[in-house]
């Protein structure tokens, strides 16, 4: 079947099987391999991206269901090659090691900050509780999100500060 959706602002159309999962559509059809996958049971969150502004697990959405919707992936986060505040926060605070959970974490963190620009530690921990990380022990991810909250303009702000 034909599926058309907007991905990072561009309209894309592909002919796919109805059963194709959104994560495979994004990775295999569009080659946007920043969105990862790590489980069969919707538990890990490495596949997190946005559909119509909500952070969701793209392994548990059919590409067909995303038809006509607005999808954002990690590849669309940096603007003109510049890291955004959340990405910069992960860099500053060492919020990543192997980097495998990182795109999902970034998409969840951005979703949180859109709704709550100044979350406390507990709120951040709660928000990322569906994103597993095997490397960092989460501490620096929490700090990274706090960094982003404190520097909404990202690295630019640091320069001007």
């Amino acid at each position, binding site marked *: *079947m034909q599926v058309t959706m907007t991905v990072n602002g561009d309209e894309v159309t592909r002919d796919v*099987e*109805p*059963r194709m*999962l959104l*994560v*495979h559509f994004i990775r295999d059809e569009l080659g946007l391999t920043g969105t990862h*996958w790590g*489980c*069969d*049971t*919707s*538990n890990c*969150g490495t596949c*997190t991206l946005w559909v119509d502004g*909500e*952070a*969701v*697990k793209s*392994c*548990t*959405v*059919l590409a*067909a*269901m995303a*038809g006509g919707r607005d999808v954002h992936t990690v590849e669309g986060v940096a603007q003109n090659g510049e890291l955004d505040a959340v990405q910069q926060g992960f860099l500053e605070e060492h919020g990543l090691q192997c980097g495998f959970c990182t795109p999902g974490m970034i998409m*969840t963190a951005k979703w949180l900050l859109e709704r709550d620009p100044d979350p406390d530690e507990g709120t951040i921990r*709660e*928000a990322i*509780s*569906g*994103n597993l990380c095997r490397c960092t022990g989460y501490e620096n991810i929490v700090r990274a999100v706090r960094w982003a909250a404190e520097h909404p303009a990202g690295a630019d702000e640091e320069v001007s500060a």
Partner: protein
Amino acid sequence: MQVPDVFEYERASSVDDAIALLEKHGDEARLIAGGHSLLPMMKLRLAVPEVLIDINDLEGLDHIRIDGDEIAIGAMVRHAALLESALLAEHYPIFADAERVIADPLVRNRGTIGGSFCQGDPAEDLASVGTALRGSAVIRSSAGERTVPIREFHQGPYETAVGDAEMLVELRFPIRTHIGSAYAKVERRVGDWAVAAAGAFVQLDGDQIADVGIGLTAVGADGFTCPEAEDLLRGGPATPERFADAAQLCHDLCAPVTDQRGPEDYKRHLARELTRRVLHRATARARGEES
């Protein structure tokens, strides 16, 4: 990653359209709402529907509002909206208590109340919330609408009152005064399904319990509840001793099964311990002693 078997995909444009599609494709067709119960089962090939009917475009199913003397919740309301609803927080904090411990924020962005009820999983948290509150389910078919008490909705594991060409459109909960409600769950880890959980509302008339509802999840309680415990409490004083007696009945009358979440005796113990706790908290909330 494990992937589903082949199926056809249809996107419904209205409730009537969804029902017409269900009728057209027969019993191998399934509605897909949030997909967060169905797709995981399809990936493991535990569910192999031939046709999926996507109901995410349907309008008029995402409300949480007062309708007469009831609160009406559309079937497509997502867990996240239930968690954040000020209306529910005012009338029934049990919803937020439960939602806070259902899955994780990402799952809650997709999963729906309708899907939760229709999945009929014995460990579903909202099932015992609805049971405790003695709500009702509005089911639509081409023949029209019917209303089923939630206590008759679940007819066994993964079996509900929703027939083949029917759709759950709304859940309704009576508004009560002088009440408190609460939910408590033990899980092995955040985001895990319940080892056991209990929910309750308590309606006070002075120090007497005017009415009470108890819901029990994942402990094999018939109909997700324990009417004997409710009967014991109703019309008597709200005292710790009587809460303990009612909780003991939940312990004695439930029928949990041993699995890797815990042995039968432990789950029974939790049925008692958690029932006792939610009765206390619901009562404290009814008295305005706790938020």
